[in-house]
């Protein structure tokens, strides 16, 4: 009984640590990666006892700075909602990761441990419900600040996130149709099959259009450049103008957590999740070649490692896009969401249905 509880706790703790640490590290990754892309060096001055380790102490210094700053609340702000909004933003970004599997079932001494914080047979719906609830934090922040500009910023953010969520929801319909399940673990397992005997049936292979649509809409859902007109760090006044100190930091943190979640989702749905090409439960099966047997623990380790590497790679790509593109105008973003992404995702559903009908059933 206690062991069972411990295992459940461990699974949740692993996911929490994974997301939180990655999210915290992203502030450093963002500064360093953008610097290297722009021929600069980037933050490297924070030091502990003379050690700088490539500026890795800067997230720490930032956290201390945020925690020690004045926590200002406007006089006419709604006390409760004003304090609640940043927590709502961070909370839903954090729990969204729970349904994303980070490995196959681990068998330890006649116990079967699913490597997933929560095993849900409607995992995808859960993730999108949580992502959509994130809008509430943003709107609450805009409304409770008692600041018209913050309210307008909250409206912009809500409009943008809704148009993005619609496209996200529609674009993954194709994936659900191909793999025939709403359970994230089943979808990832389905991506382990081989097409033509050698090509892993990852979502990016079976649903290339949905991949592009999903990543685009995903970036929009994180409210980061090129879709950052809700806040527009440098010039527009956004929904968190009135926030300071750690509450402001939590909004920034929520953006990074959402980036991790989007990267995790993309990995699980389109990049094969924890799948390593040609690695089955008993070892590597090189197509038309030898079989390299591996012990169970090594296989699971490889899978968890593969998932982590894929998520990091996806974050790298998201950061590349964020530091390359200029900001969309508000009407352009709306047009892209409603007249570009949404109809294309519907087209993708129709095409996927037609192809599935033609070949009679599921692809893999």
């Amino acid at each position, binding site marked *: 009984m206690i062991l069972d509880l411990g295992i459940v706790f461990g699974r949740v703790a692993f996911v929490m640590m994974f997301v939180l640490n990655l999210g915290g590290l992203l502030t450093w990754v963002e500064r360093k990666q953008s610097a290297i892309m722009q021929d600069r*060096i980037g933050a490297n001055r924070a030091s502990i006892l003379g050690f700088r380790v490539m500026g890795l102490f800067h997230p720490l210094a930032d956290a201390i700075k945020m925690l020690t700053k004045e926590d200002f609340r406007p006089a006419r702000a709604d006390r409760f909602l004003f304090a609640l909004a940043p927590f709502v933003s961070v909370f839903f970004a954090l729990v969204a990761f729970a349904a994303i599997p980070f490995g196959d079932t681990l068998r330890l001494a006649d116990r079967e441990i699913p490597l997933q914080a929560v095993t849900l047979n409607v995992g995808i719906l859960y993730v999108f419900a949580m992502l959509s609830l994130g809008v509430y934090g943003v709107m609450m922040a805009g409304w409770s600040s008692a600041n018209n500009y913050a309210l307008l910023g909250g409206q912009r953010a809500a409009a943008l996130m809704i148009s993005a969520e619609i496209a996200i929801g529609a674009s993954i319909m194709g994936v659900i149709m191909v793999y025939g399940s709403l359970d994230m673990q089943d979808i990832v397992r389905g991506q382990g099959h081989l097409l033509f005997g050698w090509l892993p049936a990852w979502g990016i292979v079976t649903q290339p259009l949905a991949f592009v649509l999903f990543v685009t809409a995903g970036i929009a859902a994180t409210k980061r450049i090129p879709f950052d007109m809700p806040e527009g760090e440098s010039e527009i006044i956004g929904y968190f103008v009135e926030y300071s100190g750690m509450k402001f930091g939590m909004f920034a943190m929520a953006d990074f957590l959402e980036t991790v979640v989007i990267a995790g989702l993309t990995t699980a749905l389109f990049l094969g999740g924890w799948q390593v090409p040609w690695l089955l439960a008993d070892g590597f099966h090189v197509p038309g070649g030898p079989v390299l047997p591996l012990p169970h623990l090594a296989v699971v380790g490889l899978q968890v490692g593969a998932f982590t590497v894929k998520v990091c790679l996806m974050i790298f790509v998201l950061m590349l896009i964020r530091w390359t593109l200029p900001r969309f105008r508000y009407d352009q973003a709306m047009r892209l969401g409603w007249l570009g992404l949404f109809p294309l995702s519907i087209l993708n559903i129709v095409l996927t249905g037609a192809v599935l009908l033609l070949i009679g059933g599921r692809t893999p």
Partner: protein
Amino acid sequence: MRLGQRFYLREVVEGVALTAGHFFRNMGRHLAHALGRTSARGAVTIQYPEERRPYSPRLRSLHRLVRREDGSPRCVACMMCETVCPARCIYIVAAEHPNPDIEKMPERFDIDLGKCVFCGYCVEACPEDAIRMDTGILEFSSYSRRGMIYTKEMLLSLEAAGTDGRPTSPVPIPANRTV
């Protein structure tokens, strides 16, 4: 917009390829640098307090008063620099020089660096070559305006910059500077 641009995708891929190219090229150079090829530089950054750009030999930096062999100022308090100064930042009080061959000397010679515009006219105007702006010192700052006033003694204590353009004497600290 052209039709191709309307779909964004090609343009986005081209843009990302460009920035990713920069990233990987710079990453390679950083790696080569870390592995011992010090000529490889992954960034154009000059890390300021440790590294500096080479100064031009014509650079106008903090003033100094040139000394005679006995250590007294070469200045004869003719007021030319005070007169020519467009910022009116020089304040001289003249006094009798003990040597009868030299008519005057400055009793006080203050420069308010908070006002100085570093035009170099005082150097040009000086008939005795008594004031120069060749110390190579650029970093003098203060939390108060009074701390920016440099007196005769401080200006006399400075030396010319070395051949590399770097200062050879420390930045004098005003006695009345509040830190």
